[in-house]
């Protein structure tokens, strides 16, 4: 049994181990890699994707997928910047409200009609970006964050790390408890593992599904708002392809796309892995842009293969 438990841990933390290996290799290869400043830049820039990935983890464990997060991220940012002229509270509440409602609508459609989450949220991806373009004059208007208090939410620092990092950490811990230690979390695993059985076991399937999409929408909106605070503006060209990054991070983290298994730690490790890969490419500093893409692709493939082999090792015991 001990061996079995050990290998279970191994699988769940495969991404963490690959991350550790990559960091060690990076530090040995480049002097300026393991510096506090560089580490801070990786961690800070990863925090926004991490917030989105936390929501995505819930969605994927429940057996769904959310492609709308990239669009919600940029919409959240634009709304936050727009709202900041009415004070920090509006700047935060407006994006959360709108993105939460979008998540709610998507969740309701998915839960009530049985349509594929992939398609519903793909429509969300298009529609939300359309909405964002509509309120920003086809992307031409960039609202600026004039409110100092709100900007500080994205820019303030403690110990060399900006607030979003701490917010992300708190959210991750809360999400972990929610997932592992509450009835809601159990329901998420159950409907992802076997929706029909979960329904028969008395799990409120529709409510749980709606909840995860609302969460995902809220978190994507929050990430967008925090990012707008950091950038002091509601940039309209953000978030294209972000959903794929989030999904990749979650899956690299060991969460099964078919649902029913996975966890937050892995997803956060997955996000950091993507960040570290980028940072290593920047360290080399002389690759052409085309080669950078090749290297990212190869890296990504190696990481998933490594992660996969680690989890396969578990099966064989």
């Amino acid at each position, binding site marked *: 049994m001990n061996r079995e438990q050990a290998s279970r841990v191994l699988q769940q933390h495969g991404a963490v181990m690959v991350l550790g290996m990559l960091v060690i290799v990076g530090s040995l290869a480049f002097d*300026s890699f393991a*510096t506090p*400043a*560089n580490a*801070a*830049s*990786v961690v*800070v*820039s990863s925090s*926004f994707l991490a917030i989105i990935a936390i929501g995505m983890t819930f969605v994927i464990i429940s057996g769904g997928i959310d492609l709308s997060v990239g669009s919600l991220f940029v919409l959240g940012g634009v709304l936050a910047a727009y709202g900041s002229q009415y004070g920090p509270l509006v700047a935060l509440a407006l994006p959360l409200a709108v993105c939460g409602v979008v998540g709610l609508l998507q969740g309701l459609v998915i839960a009530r009609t049985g349509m594929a989450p992939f398609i519903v949220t793909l429509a969300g991806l298009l529609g939300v970006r359309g909405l964002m*373009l509509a309120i*920003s004059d*086809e*992307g*031409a208007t*960039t609202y*600026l964050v004039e409110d100092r208090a709100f*900007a500080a939410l994205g*820019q303030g620092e403690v110990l060399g790390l*900006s607030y979003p990092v701490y917010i992300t950490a708190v959210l991750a811990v809360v999400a972990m408890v929610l997932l592992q230690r509450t009835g809601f979390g159990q329901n998420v695993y159950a409907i992802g593992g076997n929706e029909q059985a979960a329904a028969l076991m008395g799990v409120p399937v529709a409510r749980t599904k709606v909840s995860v999409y609302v969460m995902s929408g809220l978190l994507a909106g929050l990430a967008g708002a925090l*990012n707008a605070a*950091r*950038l*002091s*503006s509601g*940039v*309209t*060209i*953000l978030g*294209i*392809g972000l959903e794929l990054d989030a999904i990749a991070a979650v899956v690299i983290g060991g969460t099964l796309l078919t649902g029913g298994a996975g966890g937050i730690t892995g997803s956060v490790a997955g996000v950091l892995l993507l*960040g570290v890969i*980028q*940072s290593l490419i*920047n*360290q080399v*500093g*002389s690759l*052409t*842009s*085309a080669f*950078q*893409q090749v290297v990212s692709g190869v890296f990504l493939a190696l990481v998933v293969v490594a992660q996969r082999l680690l989890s396969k090792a578990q099966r064989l015991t």
Partner: protein
Amino acid sequence: EAPQSAPAATGTAGQQVVQTPTGTAGPTCTLEQFGGTKFDLKTATVGFSQSEKEANPFRIAETKSIKDEAARLGITNLKVTNAQSQFSKQITDVQQLIAQGVQLLVIAPLNSDGWEPVLQQAAAKKIPIITVDRKINARPCSDYLTFIGSDFYEQGKRAADRMIEALSGKGKVAILLGAPGNNVTTERTNGFKDRVKEQAPGITISFEQTGEFAREKGQQVTEQLIQSNPDINGIYAENDEMALGAVTALKGAGKEPGDIKIVSVDGTRSAVQGIADGWLHAVIESNPRFGPLAFETAGKFLDGEAIPDKVIISDRDYDTTNAKDSLGEAY
């Protein structure tokens, strides 16, 4: 020494020329005002952050020009990053360049707004930033040093002038827009529309759809356009690629060169060739060769000279009168 003379010194065709002579217009900036310390450019670590893949003539020429000039000046420690068109990545890229200890930053920004975190870090370390081709919305000489580039709004206006001239002030025009949300798109559109409204009320803009700066998209949109609006007289493409896509579409639909007047912006070699072949009416240049001007400006700044808060280059026009002769200078 006036910057205008710089191009002549290198002797390469198509070099950038500064529009406004330095001393006369606008505020200036010195090392003292900026608050930095002097260092030797040759031995310094310099970072260049490119915004998009070097996969179109403009970006290729831009990066190459920066690298070539650095090499020519003997700057060995040039670090180059590429944001692959993701703005968040560009912010991170520049932060990591700062973390790697660069002393001078040359940035080709993907977007004008949203540079706050980078500017703060750079300001804390007093790293001078020169932005090329697009502006950053911040204070020159404190948040960043200066901007070198074209005036996109102006490019739109000049394109409008060429269109008005081609259509003798009357007709229906379609616009192939660039990628939505992009500053370049916005300014080239506004410049064009404002000028048409002001100068040629006889011209109506009856169609505007995005071609996302790509040739295939330009082709597809034009194919739809000429089907449903066969009475269109002119097409304004916000970059050369879309204009060339439009040309392919027109050829496919059996049109002859000159049936529909096309004006575009950039000045790539293919587009200039397109003028020579009679398909394009005119092309407004947007010169990507920032290397010499950027390093010259940095050099002067480090020498304590006053430099202007923006260096606007004067772009040329290509049309039937000069296209054949200028082919060699197009990029």
